[in-house]
């Protein structure tokens, strides 16, 4: 029996769980307009996973990368939840991300 697959499944589960936490915190402190940055981080992690020699490390990078990409798509919906009062909303304005004008024109992705 090989338990490595189950270990990867549990790692994925943990990373997704952590994703919920960082999405809530990021939206609260920074706002959903920062979504391209976790998206790019996720793409970079998956891109990096293609070039590491270790199959295990590649797997971990790929899982973490997918979680970041999903988190990027979740930020907008989390902002709506905060607008609706289902989650805390930070009083006052939030910092604009670099290239905010372009980001606003693109529109945030969501699942």
């Amino acid at each position, binding site marked *: *029996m*090989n*338990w*490595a*697959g*189950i270990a*990867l*499944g*549990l790692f*994925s*589960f943990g*990373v*997704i769980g952590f994703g919920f936490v960082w999405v809530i915190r990021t939206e609260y402190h*920074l*706002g*959903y*307009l920062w979504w391209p940055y976790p998206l790019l981080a996720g793409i970079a992690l*998956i891109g*990096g*996973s*293609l*070039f*590491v*020699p*270790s*199959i*295990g490390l*590649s*797997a*971990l*990078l*790929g*899982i973490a*990368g*997918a*979680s970041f*990409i*999903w988190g990027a798509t979740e930020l*907008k*919906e989390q*902002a*709506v*939840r*905060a*607008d*609706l*009062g*289902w*989650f*805390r*909303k930070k*009083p*006052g*304005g*939030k*910092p*604009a991300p670099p290239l*905010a004008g372009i980001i*606003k024109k693109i529109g945030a992705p969501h*699942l």
Partner: protein
Amino acid sequence: MPQLAGLSMATATFLGIWWGHVGVRRLEARSADVRPPALALITLGLGLNLYSLFAPSLTVAGVCSIIGITLLWDAFELYRQQRRVIKGHAPANPANPRHAAYLATPNSRATTADLLKREPADPTLGSMQSSGRLGHGTSSD
């Protein structure tokens, strides 16, 4: 030759999350009783995890376990989605007899409106709304 294990795991993770969001919502909205689909998800999830123990490669084992564990979570998520519908945090499907009963309950908070289908306020402009009206960070949505 690129190492494709990470890309395979990433695809499995993303599809698992996608199904966990979109698929579970659809399944819950169409099921008159959530127990049969929950049982099917548990069976499939356990089967995939069992197979991963004997899979021929780490990539296949990892993909099977990732999908398997997310399916197990999705079985639980069906009940959470049901609770969201009751609370009005997810739209009820009036064609579903279970949802129709939620809608018909006196003083029900269930609604057919999808409250999440809207654009969020611009966060850089600030807001006079201070803290949440209902949730205070404890919502399960």
